[in-house]
């Protein structure tokens, strides 16, 4: 569940600070001995490793484990064992098999949402930032409004309105995250368009649309790529959360959130493995994305 979102702009703190002698220090730090990557940013490596494991699991896993839909009523609610690594659920299905299949679904959906939101948001951000004027004003107001809702609630309402197939859920959550990318890209574009190469391109006779998309946009995407890693994690949490409430992807599809929802009543009677294992996978995936995004410098509060 992402607790993320924009900080309303407070009046900025003044920073009349000039570098002065401190300049020398930054210079020196740049010259300083380069520690190897794993020393400087250990969490990045950890996150990447975990993510890689998930990807491998997503690609290879489903071929190796049992059928996630195979029920075995005689064997219901067995605690974890050598046969069933994560135990069985109330229908006797192997929780591990389901979790592995869910990995494929959740990771793909998370990545698709992050990438789609990034692409759409960036395009809009470029248009807004480069062309300015009333287009920019309107788009910004609109973005502010969308950001006034917690992302989860917005996705919730959208899914309630358009239905909860997997596709619809993906669309709804994507829409909820587009504004972050609009803002990020726009900020970059505003800085980029003052640079000389833009003047150069204009003098060379390029039309504004061409300049905006062919020249400025590629240079403005840096922060968005980084942010996308964080958003992928949030997306997984949101999709799972929606599924948990029964509003998102539906059972019997193997999806982590669905599995937690199905397993939740079991907790009260002490069968913890049906809900806690899939839930744990959600959190671990989100953490991996968080590590990566954080270390790459993503904004926590866009």
């Amino acid at each position, binding site marked *: 569940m992402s607790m993320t979102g924009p900080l309303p702009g407070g009046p900025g703190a*003044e*920073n*009349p*600070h*000039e570098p*002065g*002698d*401190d*300049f*020398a*220090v930054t*210079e*020196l*730090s740049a*010259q*300083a*001995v380069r*520690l190897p990557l794993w020393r400087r940013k250990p969490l990045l490596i950890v996150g990447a490793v975990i993510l890689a494991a998930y990807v491998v699991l997503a690609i290879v896993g489903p071929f190796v484990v049992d059928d996630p839909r195979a029920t075995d009523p005689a064997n219901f609610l067995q605690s974890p064992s050598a046969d069933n690594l994560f135990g069985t659920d109330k229908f006797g299905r192997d929780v591990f098999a389901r979790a592995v299949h869910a990995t494929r679904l959740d990771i793909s959906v998370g990545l698709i949402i992050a990438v789609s939101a990034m692409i759409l948001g960036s395009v809009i951000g470029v248009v807004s930032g480069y062309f300015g004027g009333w287009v920019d004003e309107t788009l910004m107001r609109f973005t502010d409004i969308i950001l006034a809702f917690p992302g989860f609630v917005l996705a919730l309402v959208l899914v309630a309105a358009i239905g909860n197939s997997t596709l619809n859920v993906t669309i709804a959550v994507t829409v909820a995250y587009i504004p972050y990318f609009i803002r990020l890209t726009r900020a970059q574009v505003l800085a980029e368009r003052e640079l000389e190469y833009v003047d150069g391109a204009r003098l060379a006779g390029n039309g504004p649309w061409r300049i905006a998309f062919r020249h400025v946009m590629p240079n403005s995407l840096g922060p968005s790529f980084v942010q996308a890693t964080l958003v992928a994690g949030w997306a997984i949490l949101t999709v799972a959360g929606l599924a948990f409430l029964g509003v998102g992807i539906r059972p019997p599809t193997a999806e982590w959130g669905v599995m937690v929802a199905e397993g939740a009543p079991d907790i009260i009677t002490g069968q913890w493995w049906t809900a806690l294992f899939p839930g744990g996978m959600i959190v671990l995936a989100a953490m991996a994305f968080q590590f990566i995004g954080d270390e790459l410098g993503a904004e926590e509060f866009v």
Partner: protein
Amino acid sequence: MSLLDVTGLTVGIRHSPLDILRDVEFSVERGEVVGLVGESGSGKTMASLAIMGLLPPGIELRSGSVRIDGTEYVDQESGRVRRTAGQMTMIFQHPRAALNPTMRVGRQISRVLELNQDLHRGAAREEAIGMLARVGIPGAARVARAFPHQLSGGMCQRVMIAMALACKPEVLIADEPTTALDVTIQAQIFDLINELVDETGTGVLFITHDLGAIAEMCDRVTVLYGGQVMEQGSLRALFTEPRHPYTRFLFEAVEREVDLRVEERGVNFALTGCRFGHRCPSAHPACVEFPPLVEVGPDHRSACFLHAEAATGGVVDGSA
């Protein structure tokens, strides 16, 4: 015994072999103003932060000795400097940024008084107003209740001076106190500092890149480049007979009105030899070693192999 005696000051970046300051030494006597001059990036601010024990995180004191009135303040084991504001304090270059924006100016001074003079609140408040008046602020009582953002740069600098004085320090370090201010205000601040030195016998370490200010204010000077002492001595000696190639270069630059604040990116901090070597017109093979400070006249020392060799009678290529 000098009031402030700094020797062998070596400061570097943690986890890295690079040294920002190498074997820096200088001293300040009672009632004296000593200048520390150099371009941007020469390490002059870093030196002052080092002896104050205010080095930023990631920068460490590798070796050195800081003695105030004979007492050593560097803890050899931890590399930390322990001193109190009553011995040595500092004023900074950007006065408004240096003051706490959420605290009234008078309170910023009175709390120093409470801490250093053991006054209680009411007395401290009165005294603070008195100090504001003392540093030349009109309407001191009203100004005391103001916040820094409501005052001009010059006023903020005076406030900072008042804060520094509230510590009744033996040594005052002034780091580019007027660089961010108007030329007219500059003169007033200089006068203020001189008055205070005469009155209280405080020693002042005056840090700047401005040779003109040095000429006005200082009794003795140390020239710094690339974190290394180039030349030092009395004002007269340095200004009438600069011996070190770098000092000459500095004077020439002033004559040609080159702005020394332009960042000089040429310093290679990995060099173990003379840091000026790569720009020096008199450079020769010996310069890959670190040059020692040698006497070249009464109260006049220079760190250059030209003079070292002359002192030992070796042959030197012609350059007077």
